[in-house]
């Protein structure tokens, strides 16, 4: 080991080492404490380097290596780690199938703007393109999915490439960066430099401009002019607020000017959902009161949100009374992409909101929105979330409510995709950002369990609960064992309705009850036995409504990993629902939420017999 030569120099600068050691050293320098991944031929040197690194370092300086059942699991663990902590998640896999198994998590991270770095082994440079064993064109495949991809061909740019990957993953709108790392590069011996980045002129210039981007006095004056002309402004906050850690700034802005807030699925936790200004989630399965507020508002202030089709299914009818639309996002390409604006700013959400708050104070902006706030609070009260209560069948919403009560809304919750995901979004309280981890844009079933494991490694002192469905859990069931292997105390709550409930709900609503491919009642899996065989000391099945609270208490309090399967009412539906491609005025509130205009939510027969004549435009 080289000694420290100068305070600015890396202690290992000048030390000759193989490329794989450089990779691991840069990971350590970047503050990586956990790497998720699966080894194999083309990445063996890097796995060996991790082993050697850990052998040479004290426990608290080591890089923990978590091995999943499948590389996709590693990807979602890294994503869960990143979502819960705000740090870059890292996963390291081998070439060919190892890399292609990571396509889904990479695309998922791209779609939800999650910073991760994936290092894939690749066959030696000389063998690339020869259809070698476990070779896949990772550069091409990932190019279409990731924020950026490197194929490391130059042996003199190993450390610079890894450092730059972290820089790109974090900067601007965060996203996944893939490094395709040929085996001979991992073995190449050279002196470690300990510094340096690759130079991308355009990217650096744009990034510097974006970082320096501030609201001008003219922009603030215009913003407050529009706000002043509005009587019913509404903040529409998205995942960008979470990603930029701007939740304090959002809360301060909303509080200062007394503007109510709706959040997207990805924005849950940006404002405490129990705050009096919070109207919870809007959109396809948003709260009725949130969607009514969107219908009623005369100004939309969009922050880190992008009017996607689950929010604005029918763009023209979204916020039909809004005279002003202010849109702020770190990604200039989002401004005006879907909905045109009357005011916009490309920049970091936190900086922008703080600038606006300060400018408003300086301008002594005051407008009384009391009547509007009272209006939305009445909406909240009159059209509160509800569900079937007179029944012996366990209602999923009841389970979530009980769990929320027990955890006091303090748990980190991850989900799969489908009905259970929406129930969790609707019935949990989210007090803080980064406590809600869900695959929002891609909608990847199988996300919940590995994401919970990753989050638990990032936040060892938190209760992390995977609220999952039977379909979603099956997708990455192998990761049940990963939790027990590492004694990772995640709580897996399976809401089992013997099928793909959301698909079933759509089939009931739009396909005349033809349950093509969505019925799993003949599947024989005993999930509890699965969990037991994977070493879960707490593995129970619950089908008695009277025991829900007591069982959940024990489940949450269990020290290690715990598994609880709850047999829920198969016919429970997610409401409200704004059909695909429809406007909010066509929202169905179902039989248990009071609609504003009763005729719109009229249900013909039972809960499951809703018949809409509209054809869905989108799935």
């Amino acid at each position: 080991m080289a000694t420290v030569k100068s305070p600015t120099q890396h202690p290992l600068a000048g030390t000759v080492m193989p490329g794989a050691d450089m990779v691991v050293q840069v990971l350590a320098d970047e503050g990586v404490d956990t790497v998720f991944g699966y080894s194999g031929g083309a990445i063996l040197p890097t796995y060996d380097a991790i082993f050697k690194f850990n052998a040479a370092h004290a426990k608290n300086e080591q890089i923990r290596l978590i091995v999943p059942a499948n590389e996709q699991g590693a990807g979602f663990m890294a994503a869960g780690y990143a979502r819960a902590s705000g740090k870059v998640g890292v996963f390291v896999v081998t070439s060919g199938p190892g890399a292609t198994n990571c396509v889904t998590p990479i695309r998922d991270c791209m779609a939800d703007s999650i910073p991760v770095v994936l290092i894939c082994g690749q066959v030696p440079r000389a063998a690339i393109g020869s259809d070698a064993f476990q070779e896949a064109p990772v550069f091409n495949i990932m190019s279409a999915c990731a924020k950026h991809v490197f194929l490391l061909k130059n042996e003199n740019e190993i450390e610079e490439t890894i450092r730059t990957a972290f820089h790109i993953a974090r900067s601007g709108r965060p996203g996944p960066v893939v490094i395709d790392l040929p085996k001979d590069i991992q073995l190449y011996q050279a002196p470690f430099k300990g510094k340096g980045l690759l130079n991308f002129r355009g990217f650096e210039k744009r990034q510097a401009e974006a970082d320096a981007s501030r609201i001008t006095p003219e922009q603030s004056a215009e913003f407050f002019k529009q706000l002043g002309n509005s009587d019913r402004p509404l903040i529409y906050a998205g995942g960008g607020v979470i990603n930029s850690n701007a939740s304090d700034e959002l809360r301060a802005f909303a509080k200062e000017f007394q503007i109510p807030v709706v959040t997207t699925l990805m924005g849950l936790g940006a404002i405490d959902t129990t705050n009096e200004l919070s109207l919870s989630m809007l959109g396809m399965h948003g709260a009725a009161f949130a969607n009514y507020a969107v219908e009623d508002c005369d100004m939309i202030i969009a922050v880190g949100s992008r009017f996607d089709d689950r929010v604005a299914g029918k763009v023209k009818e979204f916020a039909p009374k809004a005279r002003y639309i202010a849109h702020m996002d770190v990604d200039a390409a989002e401004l005006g992409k879907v909905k045109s604006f009357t005011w916009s700013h490309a920049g970091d959400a936190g900086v922008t909101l703080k600038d606006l708050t300060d400018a408003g104070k300086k301008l002594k902006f005051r407008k009384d929105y009391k009547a509007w706030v009272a209006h939305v609070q009445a909406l909240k009260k009159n059209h509160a979330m509800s569900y079937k209560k007179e029944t012996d069948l366990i209602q999923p919403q009841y389970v979530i409510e009980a769990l929320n009560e027990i955890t006091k809304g303090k748990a980190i919750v991850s989900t799969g995709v489908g009905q259970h995901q929406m129930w969790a979004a609707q019935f949990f309280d989210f007090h803080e950002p980064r406590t809600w981890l869900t695959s929002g844009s891609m909608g990847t079933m199988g996300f919940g369990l590995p994401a919970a494991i990753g989050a638990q490694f990032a936040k060892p002192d938190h209760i992390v609960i995977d609220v999952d469905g039977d379909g979603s859990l099956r997708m990455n069931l192998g990761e049940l064992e990963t939790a027990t292997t590492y004694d990772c105390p995640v709580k897996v709550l399976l809401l089992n309705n013997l099928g793909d409930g959301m698909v079933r709900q759509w089939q009931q609503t739009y396909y005349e009850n033809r349950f093509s491919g969505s019925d799993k009642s003949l599947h024989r899996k005993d999930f509890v036995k699965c969990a037991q065989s994977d070493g879960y000391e707490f593995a129970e099945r619950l089908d008695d409504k009277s025991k829900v609270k007591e069982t959940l208490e024990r489940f949450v309090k269990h020290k290690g990993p715990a598994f609880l399967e709850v047999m829920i009412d198969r016919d429970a539906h997610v409401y409200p629902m704004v059909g695909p491609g429809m406007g909010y005025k066509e929202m169905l509130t179902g039989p248990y939420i009071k609609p504003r205009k009763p005729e719109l939510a009229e249900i013909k027969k039972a809960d499951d017999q809703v018949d809409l004549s509209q054809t869905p435009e989108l799935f």
Partner: protein
Amino acid sequence: MKHTISVLVENHFGVLARVSGLFSARGFNIDSLCVGETEDPSASRMTVVVEGDDRVLEQIVKQLQKLVEVIEVTDLTKESFVERELVMIKVAVNGNGRTPIIEVVNVFRAKVVDINPDSMIVEATGSEGKIRAFIDMMRPFGIKELVRTGRIAMARSLKNNG
């Protein structure tokens, strides 16, 4: 409408795939695409000609600007610019001999670049309209083979020149 988009990129492998991928992912067929080094060998210039909805193309230009290896993007359609393309045509020499072909070549200020007993290769440079007209004039002689470079374009220095 037709757009001519000029993209200055880092001269690295794979950049072409990323740029063209943004078009192909949206189902756009690129009419022509030219790539070459610039005055700075570490940068390449791509000229992409593509037909499509203005709003979608505006979005593509914004997405191009997000690519790490893209230095600068200009939609020349909004500016005054000069465009050129080169075409080579192997044209059949039939009973009427070479003279009628050479007459057309001269009118277009094109060039004969190869001669064979039964055919000749002619080349022409110009804007899309000129190239189209030249091809139309060659067609009656019998085009045996045709190859085009695709368009390159450059913005004029003075915006009001065009």
